[in-house]
């Protein structure tokens, strides 16, 4: 059980580069036909949009760049809120980090 107060403290800083956690591994699983996050003795199965967001967290982009690149890639607009919401979850789970 993660306490509420801790969740409030951890949130995405829009100015900082986001990188995928060096303590986790993001990988395509052929047998499952999906991307997964692997960590000690555990696995999270990802849907396609979550996987696409995490692949952008490669240590070269901050929030705005991630949103722009994904909107361009999928020829759409208005993704910011969904991306932000997922990145908050990813940060709380330790899948991504900001220095």
């Amino acid at each position, binding site marked *: *059980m*993660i*306490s509420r107060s*801790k969740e409030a*403290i*951890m949130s995405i800083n829009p100015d900082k580069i986001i990188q995928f956690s*060096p*303590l986790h*591994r993001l*990988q395509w*699983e052929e*047998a*499952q036909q999906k991307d*997964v996050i*692997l*960590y*000690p*003795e*555990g*696995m999270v199965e990802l849907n396609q949009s979550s996987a696409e967001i995490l692949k952008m967290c490669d240590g070269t982009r901050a929030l705005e760049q991630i949103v722009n690149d994904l909107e361009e890639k999928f020829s759409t607009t208005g993704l910011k809120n969904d991306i932000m919401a997922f990145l908050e979850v990813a940060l709380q789970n*330790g899948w991504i980090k900001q220095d």
Partner: protein
Amino acid sequence: MAGSNKIKITPPRWLLAELTYKCPLQCPYCSNPLDYNQHNNEISTEDWKRVLSEARKMGAVQLGFSGGEPLTRPDLPELVKHARELGYYSNLITSGYGLTEEKILQLKEAGLDHIQVSIQASTQDLNDHIAGTESFQSKKEVARLVKKHGYPMVLCVVIHRENIHQMPEILAMAEELGADYVELANTQYYGWAHANRDLLMPTKEQYEAAEKIAQDFKEKVADKMKIYYVIPDFHEARPKACMNGWGTTFLTIAPDGMALPCHSARELPGLDCPNVTEHSISEIWNESKAFNFFRGTDWMKEPCGSCDEKEKDFGGCRCQAYLLTGDMYATDPVCHKSPENTVIQEAIASARASALSGDEKPLIFRNSKNSKKY
């Protein structure tokens, strides 16, 4: 039981490779079989590589190198390298004993993802007593080196009556060592732990006090450390969902190549567990008698058969049912719906009486001398 063709077979996700039963430690709660000394022939490097390849092809992705002490196998780096090439996430489950910085770097180079180090207690005296080997200082040093070289560091502490009072110090030690995860594994009473149960099982009051401390600590360190708490099932009202269901997720290969639906399944009678030197992993997983034996729910007796929670806990643990009731089809006696739940209450009472009596028998340590008695 076996042979129902209606059951949809899911692929294995977790491969536990018990490379060896050799171990420099002698922990009296070891999950290896009591008669491990009779199964000490080990399959070859080539056999292991084939097992890894075949299981990976079916969909296994988490791989545990375990034992015994897996570091005693000289081919460990070669197997780690093979696993990495196949795309496994490799976990080394080790006592840390004999793990040098050079070896840590070599394994990193080979592609190892994670090292889980076990520590027996928060003090040298108790650690070395429980481990049956002087190992406390080297374990702490290994934990630091694991962290230093960029591995996620998991500290595993098996909890029992001799160390449960150290819960605050154990957690402080984990924090000081910079653990990313702490596994607080309440002893599960199989194998050696079953033989030592009266001496190892804490009282209910001890469990409750320790769990409260762990829970408070978990909230305090939520943003930097994750805590896995393996529940003391004897004190629960419902059994654990053992192995996430028989033959659904977990595949264990023992040192001698025997394929097991769970690491204790060797003890169950009449399963005819197959050996990887004779069958492919696909045949073993999909077609063998052993892996189909308790798949699905058709095998269940009452009260499991008509229970609305049967898809949630799968009737609990087959090995525990067999060990404590003599009937491997029975409801796990941990369940309060089990007509044989009294054996659990008697076990708790017996351990409590032993704790209060003050004239306890000595622990039976896990070593080959003691193993020969079984």
